């Protein structure tokens, strides 16, 4: 949170206001899209726009959860394992190939179990950080390894293949049931509305929680200075546990969307998403040191990263180049965060 943002912004003049603005990353997105357009004209087509919005939804939800944890000066590396574990647990319940509750009737219990897995892992992370006083990095690295291994082990009991397929139509239809199809010029915008709607609800809910509720104020206070927060009577431990639990549930929700999209519960689902999630949140401007961050910033960061990724995909860039460019952009964002604080706060 930036309580005196207005005063600080005024110190930096136009450039300062621009760089400190909540819309700085959105402006970067617009400039980047304009710069890329001559080389990838299809970028501005309705079809690609629809693809980008659909691609954003799962990443945005898990990034929103990560924002809660980063604001309390933590980090959650276990999100990838939560995505995978929730996917295989849910799939094992509802799969029509020998699930515990096969078919459409198993969808709701499966979704609840998936969210439960996310909440439980988040709770475990939060308890380990608060009760055992362990660093979040170490705790979530360990739980990431443990639950990623558990997801693979669990899968071996439910299929002879490497993933659990044959999921019921009610679940796989999440991406197919309500699709907006809108011809725009020569292109057609195809948008799966349910995942987008879920992402919008999560974003609005998280934004309201952080900006308008007591819990939100506690989260910022704990992230800014844990000792001061405790002296002020804020339940620091509960706040930290809740932030990790929210993050776990968000990761599980992403697991639901991804496994529905791929119509499969895979134990390696989301394995490589960590860089994108933390990168998006940091690009948005949320501080890795805690106490500062907004859902709107995360939304901008996710948009920028998806835009970058889409452009590079359309250009046929190699994986190595994509890694280099993404890594450079995330590093630049972290550096920019440090610089803009030093320049416009110190001066």
């Amino acid at each position: 949170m930036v309580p005196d943002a207005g005063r600080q912004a005024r110190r930096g003049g136009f450039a300062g206001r621009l760089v400190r603005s909540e819309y700085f990353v959105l402006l970067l997105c617009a400039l980047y899209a304009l710069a890329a357009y001559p080389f990838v004209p299809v970028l501005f087509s309705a079809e690609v726009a629809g693809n980008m919005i659909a691609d954003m939804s799962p990443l945005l939800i898990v990034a929103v959860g990560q924002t809660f944890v980063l604001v309390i000066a933590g980090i959650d590396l276990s999100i990838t394992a939560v995505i995978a574990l929730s996917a295989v647990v849910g799939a094992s319940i509802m799969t029509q190939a020998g699930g515990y509750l096969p078919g459409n009737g198993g969808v709701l219990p499966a979704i609840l179990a998936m969210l439960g897995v996310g909440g439980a892992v988040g709770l475990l992370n939060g308890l380990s950080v608060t009760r055992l006083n362990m660093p979040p990095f170490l705790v979530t690295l360990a739980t990431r390894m443990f639950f990623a291994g558990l997801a693979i082990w669990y899968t071996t009991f439910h299929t002879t293949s490497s993933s659990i397929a044959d999921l019921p139509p009610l679940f796989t239809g999440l991406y197919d049931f309500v699709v907006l199809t809108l011809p725009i010029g020569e292109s057609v915008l195809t948008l799966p509305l349910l995942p987008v709607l879920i992402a919008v609800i999560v974003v609005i809910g998280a934004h309201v929680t952080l900006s308008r509720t007591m819990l939100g104020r506690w989260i910022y206070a704990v992230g800014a200075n844990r000792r001061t927060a405790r002296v002020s009577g804020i339940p620091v431990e509960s706040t930290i546990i809740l932030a990790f639990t929210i993050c776990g549930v968000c990761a599980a929700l992403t697991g639901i969307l991804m496994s529905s999209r791929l119509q499969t519960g895979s134990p390696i689902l989301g394995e490589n998403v960590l860089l994108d999630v933390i990168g998006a949140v940091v690009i948005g401007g949320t501080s890795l040191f805690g106490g500062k961050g907004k859902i709107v910033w995360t939304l901008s960061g996710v948009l920028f990263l998806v835009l970058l990724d889409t452009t590079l995909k359309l250009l046929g860039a190699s994986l190595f180049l994509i890694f280099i460019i993404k890594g450079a952009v995330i590093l630049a964002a972290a550096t920019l965060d440090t610089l803009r604080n030093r320049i416009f706060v110190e001066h």
Partner: protein
Amino acid sequence: MSMNRRDFTVGTLMGLAAMSGLTVAVRAEGDKTIAVLFDGLYSEFWVAGIKIIRADLEKRGFKIMEAISDKDDNKQFEQVKAAIAQKVEGIIIVQTDSNAVIPAIKAANAANVPMVHFNRPPAQSEAFSVAIQADNQKIARDAVLYSCEVAKASGKKHQAAILIGNLGDPNAIQRRDGFDEAVGQYKDVIDVVARIPTEWDADKAFAGLTNALQANPDISFLFTSSDFLIPQIQQALEAADKWAPIGDDKHVIFTGFDGFPAAYGLMKDKFMDACGVQNLFYETTLAIQAILDLKAGQKVEKLLLDPGFAITQANMEEKKGEMWGYVLWKEANPG
């Protein structure tokens, strides 16, 4: 801090210019493009595969849209959607998971873009795509049969070990079955004492083989489901004092699979007895031809088999020209 606001603004604009410059560096748009989407380049087989596909497509005048998903099925689905948006002529894909690729096939079907799976078939579904696959079981069986004959000719009984791949990969299962089919015919000569799961992981293969050699020091017959494990096998056999050429008493009768350049090197130096070879050149031709045929509206079977072959110490001179590993080995060792 010595940087002023003007410097900062200039720096930001330069950064933007650099970003747009990067897009120039990776520019790739043409009239007719084929997307080549691999899940990774984890061994020489896949590196050689993408290289041969690239060369073949360029020779035919196609532009290529390449992408690697790094074993991320969701990312690969997005890559397929991007390829469709780019109006590609067809998609050659190597997926990680045979189930998770099905929505991508459906998306390609809906956009009327032909999709061909290179060397790794998808799971059964109503979606239509064409898979190019080596006849793994037959190739493995033929290669191991030769080694079984060598074992029989030695006049001794042999304890055998097999390095098995990831059982979620149909190729790994078929290679294991080919091995079993062959040694099953020589039960009086060969006793399988170790089945080592590798999950296509070199570290697990090394640890598993080392343990097997300690538990069964008389192992003298070995089959690897992929040649990419050769360095780990050599290391483990050296540590067990069993790395010796054909003719030496300590020689372990060794059968490979894939036809890597390293496998050819070992065949030439008489450390390997036989190797099942996937005909990478033939598979590439099949894949590209399938896309062209589908685009032309012709009917193509869902599964196109590469019969492959077994290269052995007996037929090496005659067959090596068809071995992709030999071609690459020769490039690396001219003269």
